[in-house]
């Protein structure tokens, strides 16, 4: 099938060009699917629903899908076996892992992640990943099988109300009831997933729709009359923002995930450096601005730096770029940023003034709004403000003693040294996540991937696998071979690691040289920390030490290399050994001290400047 081969090349080439441009296709208001090839060459051919689905996915420029077969989707898998398609299918080992892998892929590449699962349990197993993608605005299209339309509502085998279950955790969802809608629905799903505020879209596919036949008509354009989003900000609002910035004496850029996902990281960096406005990022904003820069204050919020929170509390202007004033950022909202006026730039109107009312609202894409704002803002004299910040940085820096204990923070620092910051770090949830956010010092957008909104344990391993596939494919498709070969590091605690460890088999099967770190403190560390600090050391059900598996043996059972490190002097050696493994994942278990806590910390319900900075000052705050 030569035409098919040509087609495949074409899609890959286009996807590669799109990735190489770097600016996200989110920013374009019209249908920016560079995958729309004018009229599709297969238009007019009679196909089954399964074939239409696969050809439509291919036409979207997808290079990999993560899935798990089952009765309701067996027809799709059958066609996948027969057809020569422009994308590969990765068989995950649990549907939740599939959704996280698609999330990791989307976060690393900026493209839409694709998942294909069967009905019933296949769909419900995806729910956690879909909810995760919804809260973190990750573009995902999840195809779920469904029982035949005549059985819907009959409590049939492996039936569940997928659209009902996923309604409140998706940007939109579809139940395909007419095969003639299928191609259009697929195109719309990808369009809704990646444009506006990105997010997950579910497409539920009854089995009879997949078996029926229709003419393949892949639409060239998307036309959804109820869906629109601005890219440019309102000119008057942008001018007002510029005036507010000109007036401010202690301005602070508060940068969130929208900056990274819209591809505005480099613009923001240039803007901050030129105007001399300091920058703090949220957990998802990490990487938008290089943390080595003197203007960087690192992360703000509950486990942010002390100096970032001090700056927020003292700033007279906060410029929020693609951030949503989450409760983990604001703490006690009534006392948050008491002196600051607020400029809020966000693509989602409903996000603006949701938690904290903005003085100046700009609905638009960070990428374009920064373009509009930049020429209106003169460089500022922030010297005395920066001097104050420098003092705060000296007062309470992020640090960790280098002593005889194997401390998790020092593992993160060693990984930073090994990679010089040029890596993709995918964290799990809890203490490991916060240490990875605090101590790695990120320099590039998309180099930090985590489950921030939903806080899903078990995220890291599958998401890292997805990110690794994304990078591998981007390298394969990059005609200029300029996509760097970045190591993908999965950072886990011993609790979360076990939640999706089975996905290591997938990485091993494909020879992905993932670097998996387990910071094993024998406990559910973050919960243990709260129990120690706020629950009088009643360690209820957080001790895993005596029942943990042998992680090295487990790694080897999953065809990975297993390494164990129990002493701080071996950290570097262990990492070096892991980096020598190039044909499979290397799992490094670090037996870290269990008493280590994440500091500084804003206790729940406290104001942002009331941080616990060490065990010693706990009583002062309380």
């Amino acid at each position, binding site marked *: 099938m030569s035409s098919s081969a040509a087609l495949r090349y074409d899609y890959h080439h286009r996807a590669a060009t799109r990735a190489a441009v770097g600016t996200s296709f989110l920013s374009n208001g019209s249908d920016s699917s560079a995958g729309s090839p004018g009229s599709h060459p297969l238009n007019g051919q009679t196909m089954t629903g399964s074939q239409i689905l696969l050809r439509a996915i291919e036409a979207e420029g997808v290079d990999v899908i993560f899935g798990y077969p089952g009765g309701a989707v067996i027809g799709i898998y059958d066609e996948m076996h027969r057809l020569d398609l422009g994308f590969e299918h990765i068989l995950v080992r649990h549907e939740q892992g599939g959704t996280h892998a698609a999330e990791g892929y989307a976060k690393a590449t900026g493209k839409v992640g694709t998942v294909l699962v069967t009905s019933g349990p296949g769909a419900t197993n995806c729910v956690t990943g879909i909810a995760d993608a919804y809260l973190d605005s990750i573009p995902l299209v999840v195809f779920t099988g469904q029982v035949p339309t005549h059985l819907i509502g009959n409590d049939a085998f492996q039936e569940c109300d997928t*659209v*009902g279950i996923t*309604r*409140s955790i998706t*940007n*939109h969802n579809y*139940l395909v*009831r007419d095969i003639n809608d299928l191609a259009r629905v697929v195109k719309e799903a990808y369009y*809704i997933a990646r444009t506006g505020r990105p997010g997950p879209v579910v497409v539920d596919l009854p089995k009879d729709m997949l078996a029926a036949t229709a003419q393949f008509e892949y639409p060239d354009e998307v036309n*959804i*009359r*109820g*869906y629109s989003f601005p890219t440019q900000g309102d000119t008057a609002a942008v001018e007002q923002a510029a005036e507010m910035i000109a007036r401010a004496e202690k301005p602070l850029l508060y940068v969130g995930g929208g900056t990274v996902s819209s591809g505005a990281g480099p613009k923001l960096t240039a803007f901050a450096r030129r105007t001399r406005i300091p920058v703090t990022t949220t957990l998802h904003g990490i990487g938008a601005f290089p943390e080595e820069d003197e203007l960087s204050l690192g992360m703000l919020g509950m486990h942010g730096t002390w100096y970032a929170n001090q700056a927020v509390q003292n700033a007279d202007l906060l410029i929020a770029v693609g951030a949503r004033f989450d409760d983990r950022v604001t703490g*006690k*909202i*009534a*006392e*948050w*940023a*008491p*002196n*600051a*006026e*607020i400029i809020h730039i966000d693509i*989602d*109107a*409903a996000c603006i*003034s*949701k*938690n*904290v*009312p903005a*003085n100046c609202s700009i609905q638009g894409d960070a990428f374009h709004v920064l373009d509009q704002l930049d020429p209106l803002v003169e460089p500022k004299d922030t010297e005395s403000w920066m001097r104050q910040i420098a003092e705060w940085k000296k007062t309470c820096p992020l640090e960790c003693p280098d002593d005889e204990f194997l401390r998790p923070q020092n593992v993160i620092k060693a990984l930073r040294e090994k990679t010089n910051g040029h890596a993709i770090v995918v964290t799990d949830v809890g203490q490991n996540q916060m240490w990875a956010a605090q101590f790695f010092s990120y320099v590039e957008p998309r180099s930090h991937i985590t489950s921030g909104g939903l806080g899903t344990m078990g995220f890291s391993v599958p998401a890292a696998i997805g990110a690794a596939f994304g990078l591998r494919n981007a390298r394969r498709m990059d005609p200029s071979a300029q996509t760097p070969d970045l190591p993908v590091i999965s950072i886990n605690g011993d609790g979360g690691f076990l939640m999706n460890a089975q996905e290591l088999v997938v990485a091993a099967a494909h020879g992905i040289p993932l670097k998996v770190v387990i910071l094993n403190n024998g406990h559910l560390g973050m919960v243990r920390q709260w129990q120690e600090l706020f629950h009088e050391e009643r360690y209820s059900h957080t001790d895993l030490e005596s029942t943990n598996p042998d992680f090295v043996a487990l790694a080897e059972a999953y065809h990975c290399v297993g390494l164990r490190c129990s002493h701080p002097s071996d950290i570097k050696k262990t990492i070096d050994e892991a980096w020598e493994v190039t044909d499979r994942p290397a799992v490094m278990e670090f037996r870290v001290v269990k008493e280590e806590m994440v500091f500084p910390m804003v206790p729940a319900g406290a104001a942002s400047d009331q941080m616990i900075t060490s065990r010693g000052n706990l009583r002062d705050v309380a």
Partner: protein
Amino acid sequence: MLTDQQIFRRRAAGQPVFEDEREKNHQHMITLRLENTIGALNRVINMFSQRGFNLTSVSVGETNEPGISRMTLVTTGTDRIIAQVVKQLDNLIDTLSVDDVTEAPHVQRELCLVKVAADASNRSVLTGISDIFRGRVVNITTETMTFEVSGPPAKINGFIGMMDEYTILEVARSGRIAMRRKMEFEEDAE
């Protein structure tokens, strides 16, 4: 003396600052045009429970535009909450337009059916009450009468209140429908 910013933050945290109209809960009538597709109604209702918004009444029906239905929602909240309700409704893909008509000159109507136990002894009294409310008798049996009355909710409540002096067997209310008196562009021109 609170700064503007402190006032903002207190409001954000749901703490009252002044006994200000904006901080009180008010009833709002919001009209929607939405795709007449399976699940669209669900999406709207679901959003209210998902986000913890209050929903007092819903009515929905087809319009003159093919494939488009119109919905009138009655919800209660502070100005800040209502602004969120409107934005979240607008975010739904099936929503074509959202309009909070509360502040604008508008007409609102609700239809109500009331079935009352009635026999020869009180039929004329009941009919007399109904006439005052511009109601109509839509059904009569040897033991009951069913009245139809329409109007703004206060009128309906008044009618039901009067009928409550007798024996009400059943009440069915349609929920409110509302419409601006003028088109938005007319108001903008003024």
